[in-house]
């Protein structure tokens, strides 16, 4: 294939001195990732041992996923997500972007090692994120259902609410009305909420021992007209439980032979997964060559080198273009308006042969800028008027050309003060939010280092519920409204003045300030960001490109709108910048 766009090489090799200087930083990032991986492992080992699951003739959800997914094609999200501090330290589901039988999907399964895959605190939000992804990426949603219903002792954290556990079923219905199929492989006992997890998808593929039911035997047997339990009630309960243990409602006998809800029933666990693979083969998908503008190519520089570029030290600058060059095909790009808004990078790149827009913060000093003041100079990471206008323009043009966007944040916020207000930065930030929402483009964001203040929102942040498919963090991620020291100064500076004027000791106030700094630090680390869901996953630098490739393939699998490559304006706009000022070719003779 002849590449449709002639792109320009960029990026530079690492220097010896740089490698040496960054050794400690790289060691720190590896340590941070070890902590994340250890937490992932702890969650996998929590609950019933895998051996016990095997003895029951079942597989764990991770084993099911491994069998189901094309080798190496599962990109996990929400691995350690635990927004409600559930005792397992998880949300009880395992999910991510996956490729099955060559087709991309959003995959989610219940962790059957923990209370038989019950609904637990935090899971509803996880499910919302997953259904959001399927909707934004227009990908099939594949469920591995194995859900014992609500964790009853904590039902108040799980069952009700506008965005509670039941919302998932409305989301399934919404996806179906949008033409997004929901496939389910069903295992184990699935009463009540589990029953709806089983019935709400589009295609139901059942294991022979599974059931789905409005309520389980326990619910029917547990009804007590007295309002309390006594010995007589207990005897009735024992009798009812024995009965329902023998004949659980909603077995395959009912829902295959009688209602026909189950499409197929399978003897073996893996046969259910084989059937899912077969259904996935038939999912609507363009051949990638329909949209590719060039052959897929690896970057000229290894993504694993990014650790030697992005320092853990949040105050240290680096060359962002060198990061992008390690993530995109052939380390080539077409930069949009390079001389304008120098604090921001905007450009077109190829990811696995697919056209993609990249936006990110540049770092370092920018003398003689911004143009609206001589009072101070600019520093990368902060946003100024031109950068905000440039991002608005770029997003709008990407929208016109239907080019998905990947954002990279390392931002300390938007310029502040009356000078900045006069330069309309507040309005331009919100304009960018408007541009993103209006674009209706699938987007992902990498919080490369700092995600701070409103800049975290306006630069493709996860708040864009209709466009942000998912957000990744890295070992250098740090997310907070402002730096802890800034927050402590803002909160306590007047108090310090008061104490000083009253000739009181400053130590108690200073202690509080330092406590606040520590609190901000603790609550902004990569581990915290992943646990709280401020990002959907922490990914080491060397894996970033894999997620970008998965994203690119996902968004181009079955897009809802198309711009023919020869109708695109953005590459032409970029090229016109290049030729501006050139003379017309002279006629010979």
């Amino acid at each position, binding site marked *: 294939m002849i590449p449709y766009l002639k792109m320009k090489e960029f990026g530079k090799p690492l*220097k010896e001195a740089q490698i040496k200087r960054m050794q400690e930083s790289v060691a720190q990032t590896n340590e941070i990732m070890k902590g994340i991986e250890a937490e992932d492992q702890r969650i996998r080992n929590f609950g019933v041992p895998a051996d016990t699951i095997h003895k029951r003739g079942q597989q764990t959800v991770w084993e099911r996923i491994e069998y189901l997914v094309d080798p190496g094609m599962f990109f996990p999200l929400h691995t350690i997500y635990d927004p409600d501090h559930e005792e397992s330290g998880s949300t009880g589901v395992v999910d991510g972007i996956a490729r099955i039988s060559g087709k991309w999907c959003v995959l989610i399964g219940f962790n059957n090692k923990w209370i038989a895959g019950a609904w637990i605190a935090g899971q509803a939000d996880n499910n919302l994120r997953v259904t959001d992804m399927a909707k934004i990426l227009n990908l099939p949603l594949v469920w591995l259902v194995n859900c014992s219903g609500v964790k009853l002792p904590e039902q108040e954290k799980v069952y009700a609410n506008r965005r509670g556990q039941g919302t998932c079923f409305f989301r399934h219905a919404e996806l179906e009305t949008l033409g997004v199929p929901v496939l389910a492989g069903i295992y184990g006992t699935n009463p009540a909420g589990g029953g709806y997890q089983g019935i709400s998808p589009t295609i139901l593929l059942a294991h022979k021992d599974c059931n789905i039911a409005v309520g389980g035997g326990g619910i029917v047997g547990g009804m007590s007209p007295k309002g309390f339990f006594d010995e007589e009630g207990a005897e009735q309960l024992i009798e009812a439980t024995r009965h329902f243990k023998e004949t659980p409602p909603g077995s395959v006998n009912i829902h295959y032979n009688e209602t026909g809800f189950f499409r197929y029933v399978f003897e073996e666990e893996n046969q259910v997964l084989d059937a899912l693979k077969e259904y996935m083969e038939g999912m609507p998908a363009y051949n990638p060559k329909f949209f590719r503008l060039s052959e897929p190519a690896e970057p000229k520089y290894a993504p694993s080198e990014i650790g030697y570029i992005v320092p853990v030290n949040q*105050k240290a600058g680096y060359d962002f273009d060198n990061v992008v060059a390690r993530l995109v095909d052939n380390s080539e790009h077409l930069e949009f308006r390079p001389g304008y808004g120098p604090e921001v990078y905007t450009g077109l790149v190829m990811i696995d042969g697919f056209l993609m827009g990249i936006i990110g913060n540049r770092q370092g*000093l920018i003398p003689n800028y911004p143009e609206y003041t001589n009072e101070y100079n600019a520093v990368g990471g902060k946003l100024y008027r031109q950068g905000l206008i440039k991002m608005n323009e770029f997003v709008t043009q990407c929208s016109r050309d239907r080019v998905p966007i990947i954002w990279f944040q390392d931002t300390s916020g938007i310029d502040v003060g009356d000078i900045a207000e006069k330069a309309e930065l507040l309005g331009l930030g919100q304009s960018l939010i408007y541009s993103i929402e209006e674009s209706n483009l699938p987007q992902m964001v990498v919080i490369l280092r700092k995600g701070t203040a409103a800049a975290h929102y306006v630069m493709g942040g996860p708040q864009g519920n209709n466009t942000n498919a998912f957000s990744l963090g890295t070992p250098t991620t740090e997310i907070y409204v402002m730096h802890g020291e800034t927050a402590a100064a803002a909160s306590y500076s007047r108090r310090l003045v008061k104490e000083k004027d009253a000739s009181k000791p400053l130590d108690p106030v200073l202690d509080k300030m330092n406590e606040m700094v520590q609190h901000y630090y603790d609550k902004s680390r990569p581990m915290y960001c992943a646990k709280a869901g401020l990002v959907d996953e922490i990914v080491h630098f060397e894996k970033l490109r894999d997620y970008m490739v998965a994203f690119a393939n996902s968004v181009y699998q079955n897009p809802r709108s198309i711009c023919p490559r020869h109708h695109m304006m953005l590459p032409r706009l970029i090229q016109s910048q290049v030729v501006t000022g050139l003379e017309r070719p002279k006629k010979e003779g």
Partner: protein
Amino acid sequence: MEEVLAPMPGNILEVIVKVGDAVKEDDELVILEAMKMENPICSPVDGTVKEIKVKAKDVVEADQLLVVIE
């Protein structure tokens, strides 16, 4: 002869090179702390460090001479 100047006022955090060092274009010479950030000041050319006009903890003004590359 190439003179490397401070792009804006700040504090010298670290001088990375020493006189006589061979440097390449884009090699880091000095770390300048300005605008709460630690900013590497890089060599604009290949050459040898002829003079170093600052040391760690120095406060510098914009356009102050930092390093001379020959």
